[in-house]
């Protein structure tokens, strides 16, 4: 009779103990070196802390009055930029997402669209903002283009991933009826991704609003530009007021967008 084993250990991911502990030692060494690499200048920190105090005192006594008109204008401009850029991004992202889905297009189309998406996604929104400000000058036009391109990258990539995950059988069934490519997209692809697309777009609008507060700092319009001006003048009371408005707006849009998305999915 065969002997029954009585011990069992979970198989380790890395069998060789030398490599296993070697990696651990390397990680610890890295953490130590990384820690010593950061120079902490005590003097600079203490000066900075007092400025934090100033900023916070601004927060607690926000001044909505003296530059109120600019704050309202900035917020409205940010909202307008968000809406316009989201609408354009939604329209442009769909064909690119279709092209970037391996299951419905030939390889060369797929590669072109994927590379395009990778390129625009590799540029951070602030860098995009700087580029568009250089191309089209200061103001909301550069902002809209920035958010639009960034949005196309976002919606395009995620939508393409969803399209690649649709049920192959449904696609096959519609193809088998003799439907053309475009009809197949309308009848087999779109119904499977439409709610996700709307969810993504709303989420994207939410992100765009938050980003519109940042890209103003590089000159692309919106509330960020007003904030930058206030900060530049050491007018922390106005800056505090703007930050409060931004925080509240972000909370509202975030809550609103997640509520809508929950409802439709």
């Amino acid at each position, binding site marked *: 009779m065969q002997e029954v084993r009585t011990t069992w250990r979970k198989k380790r991911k890395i069998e060789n103990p030398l490599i296993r502990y070697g990696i651990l030692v390397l990680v610890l060494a890295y953490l130590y070196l990384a820690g010593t690499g950061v120079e902490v200048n005590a003097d600079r920190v203490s000066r900075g802390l007092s400025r934090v105090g100033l900023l916070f005192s601004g927060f607690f006594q926000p001044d909505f009055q003296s530059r109120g008109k600019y704050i309202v204008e900035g917020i409205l401009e940010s909202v307008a930029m968000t809406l316009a850029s989201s609408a354009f991004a939604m329209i442009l992202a769909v064909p690119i997402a279709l092209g970037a889905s391996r299951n419905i297009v030939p390889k060369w189309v797929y590669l072109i669209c994927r590379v395009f998406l990778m390129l625009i996604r590799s540029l951070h929104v602030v860098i995009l903002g700087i580029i568009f400000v250089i191309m089209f000058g200061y103001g909301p036009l550069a902002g809209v283009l920035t958010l639009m391109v960034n949005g196309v990258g976002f919606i395009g990539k995620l939508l393409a991933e969803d399209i690649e995950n649709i049920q192959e059988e449904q696609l096959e*069934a519609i193809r*088998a009826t003799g439907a053309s490519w475009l009809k197949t997209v309308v*009848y087999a692809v779109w119904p499977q991704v439409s709610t996700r697309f709307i969810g993504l777009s709303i989420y994207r609008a939410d992100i765009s609003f938050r980003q519109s507060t940042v890209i103003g700092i590089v000159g692309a319009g919106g509330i960020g530009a007003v904030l930058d001006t206030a900060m530049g003048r050491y007018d922390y009371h106005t800056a505090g007021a703007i930050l409060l408005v931004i925080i509240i707006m972000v909370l509202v849009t975030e809550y609103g967008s997640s509520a809508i998305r929950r409802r439709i999915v």
Partner: protein
Amino acid sequence: MVEIKDLVKRYPSGQEALKSVSLTLEENTVMALIGPSGAGKSTLIRCINRLVEPTSGTILINGTNVCELGKKELRLRRRKIGMIFQEYALVDRLTVMENVLSGQLGYVGFWTSTLRRFPQDVVAQAYTLLERVGLSDFVDNRADQLSGGQRQRVGIARALIQNPDLLLVDEPTASLDPKTSRQVMRLIVELVQERNLQCIINIHDVVLAKQFAQRIVGLQDGKIVFEGKSAELDVSVLNTIYGEEDWNIKKKKKEDEDDEADIFSMGE
């Protein structure tokens, strides 16, 4: 008439799913394709409407070689070939009516179908078919609200609204219970006779194949190992198709089913 000659399918992985298969299909007959999993049954019927591209060989449908058709001609050919799938393959988020009408996509224009403005005679056909398969009350239900049997009936209606001359059926009963399976098979067979179609059914269930098909083809490892009338299917044939097994397990069947318990006593 469908004539398949020396059909070979080699997948990019090097796996040879079909090794020189030749087969002739007649009108007004239901032909069942049986065989173990991985024998190439699905590949074979998907080659006929080129959802799978054959590696070599010819498939003649009414004299035209399907393998040589261009994109546009292939679409025109496909719309005359109805297909019914294992997991129904309905578009879940569309309604029953939309799913049925999608069978007409090869005929109507892009905007007509996208805006759901199908011609009156097509809509009338859809209603008639839904009535025929017993789903008149579910026209506006979403496909994913239906039970398995109901979904398969929608699948059948979608295939038939194409006004096909050939019906490809891939494991229609694999996800259905025994009673629903028989109802679905009976419906398919009736419709084939009503409309004088040619029909290939790919099926795992030997009992169903024997009961509903007139001809049976056994596929094993990409080759045809049996071809004959369903009455000729017996233990020795099953042994050649599937390998040795004790087939003669007599089970006590429930009274409410009129099907015979022993598959080999049928039709004899």
